[in-house]
């Protein structure tokens, strides 16, 4: 009997590997191998037109990259965009989630409404806002003029001081729904009984929010923020469509693709890609560590 069990387990393990094999092969071909090649190309002088012919040149591509002020500007742009947009989205997402958590009619409809900006292509959102923000014919300038706030149309996406705030505002419109849905899911898992107990004890609603809701919700918020962070750090399409030629909103992803595809410089482009990979890996590692610490501190 015992040997039969062992035989059965070994057979089951073989089945497991057999069933996993296709997915592992695909992920190897589409993610792990290309990632390795990107790192390898970052040490070569390969060109996109003939990627087979290359020599190893050590860290030269990284020196070129780190001497380019535009690279550092795109790093600053990306970090600024990420920190500001994710902060606003978290605060706004929390507020709207609390609003939707009110036990009141029309909640389902609101949840559906809020899902729409998230589900459409970013390219479409960018085009839509580009049109509303048009300096001459855009509705925003029109309304501002009607209200007597401005005399001439503001060039929202051409003014170097305004373009980043505009991109952040559009991103907030696109991705706040995602935050709302994740935080709302966390809110709905909170036990109602503790609130009933708190109410009976006469704890004020604000105190209930700061002492009960926020700490209990912290893990859900932390996970939602991590997802948004990963997404914001690799932002590409919004800047590309809304302000494609502006250095003021160039993100690291746009920079790397430009060097790689437009300048055909596979070496420096891969070095930039590898640097982005490491940057995101480090941010994620730090975040996850701090998050676990938080969790322990909160005793959740």
């Amino acid at each position, binding site marked *: 009997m015992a040997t039969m069990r062992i035989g059965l387990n070994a057979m089951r*393990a073989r089945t497991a590997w057999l069933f*996993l094999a296709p997915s592992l092969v695909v992920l190897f071909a589409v993610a792990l191998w290309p990632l390795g090649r990107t790192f390898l190309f970052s040490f070569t002088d390969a060109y996109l037109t003939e990627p087979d012919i290359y020599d190893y040149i050590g860290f030269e591509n990284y020196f070129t990259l780190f001497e380019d002020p535009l690279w550092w500007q795109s790093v600053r742009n990306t970090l600024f965009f990420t920190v500001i947009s994710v902060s606003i989205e978290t605060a706004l997402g929390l507020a709207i989630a609390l609003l939707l958590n009110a036990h009141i009619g029309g909640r389902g409809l609101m949840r559906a*409404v809020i899902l729409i*900006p998230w589900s459409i292509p970013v390219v479409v959102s960018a085009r*839509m806002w580009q049109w*509303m923000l048009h300096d001459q014919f855009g*509705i925003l300038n029109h309304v501002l003029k009607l209200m007597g706030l401005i005399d001439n149309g503001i060039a929202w996406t051409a003014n170097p001081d305004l373009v980043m705030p505009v991109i952040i505002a559009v991103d907030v419109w696109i991705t706040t729904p995602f935050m709302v*849905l994740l935080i709302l899911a966390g809110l709905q898992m909170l036990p109602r009984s503790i609130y009933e107990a708190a109410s009976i004890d006469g704890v004020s609603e604000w105190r209930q929010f700061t002492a009960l809701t926020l700490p209990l919700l912290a893990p859900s918020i932390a996970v939602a923020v991590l997802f948004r962070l990963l997404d914001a750090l690799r932002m590409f399409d919004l800047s590309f469509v809304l302000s494609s030629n502006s250095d003021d909103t160039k993100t690291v992803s746009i920079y790397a693709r430009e060097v790689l595809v437009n300048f055909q410089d596979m070496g420096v482009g891969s070095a930039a890609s590898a640097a982005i990979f490491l940057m995101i890996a480090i941010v994620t590692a730090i975040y996850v560590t701090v998050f676990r610490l938080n969790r322990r501190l909160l005793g959740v």
Partner: protein
Amino acid sequence: MVRSRANRRLHRIAIYSLFTVVALYTLFPFYWMIASSLKSGQAIFDVTFLPDLKFNNYEAILSDGVFLRSLMNSLIVAASVVVLSLGLAIAAAYALGRIDFRGRSPIMFLFLAVSMFPQIALLSGLFEMIRWLGLYNTLGSLIFAYMIFTLPFNIWVLTTFMRSLPRQIEEAAIMDGCSPLRIVRCIFLPMMGPALMSTGLLAFIASWNEFMFALTFILTDENRTVPVAIALISGSSRYEFPYGAIMAASTIVTVPLIVLALLFQKYIVSGLTAGAVKG
């Protein structure tokens, strides 16, 4: 209890006014897109809040064979990605969710790590791989590349789902000597409807919307997908920008997604939160 009736009504009014503000903020851009797409020619440059209901922009964009072709391409890519990523993920999730074997945890971790890869980090390696496979400038390149963000996510969500099912359901079948393939097909597949809906919808939306790979791996107009087609519509100068056509094209690609979002809200939300809460 203590709260008076008037106070309560005030509370309700406040909440509904906030609902209205949020809904207006969310929906007005869509209204404006549709209204603008229905104005013809120069009328788009006059700011009037009601549309003219002229369909010239739609006629123009739909008689343009290239745009219809992009719509078709997007549909083919998104549908193929859904079928392929779900097929692979169901098999993998059975292995990871129902069988205890050595190496299970490292593999789960690997899938999670891959789902966090920034896509730009794979671009040059993937470019080489796609050329080597002979997929450059074909829809196949996108179907292949989109596995990066659909497959790990689907595997993760479906594995969590399969693990949550009671242990007994397949034991009799194993003892009867049913093949694993048969167990998956006859026992698990019929129970997985909602989970497959969620992951399938999310994979469809993500593939329909993807931009960077579609911009990079496709060279010619007739193989483009819609997001790239819309991003590349441009006029001869900044002042001749064909906004009417852009708004019409944007409306056409957005409507199916709005219908999906409204009809299958429940599944989309549960897929999103399953990925985040368990991930």
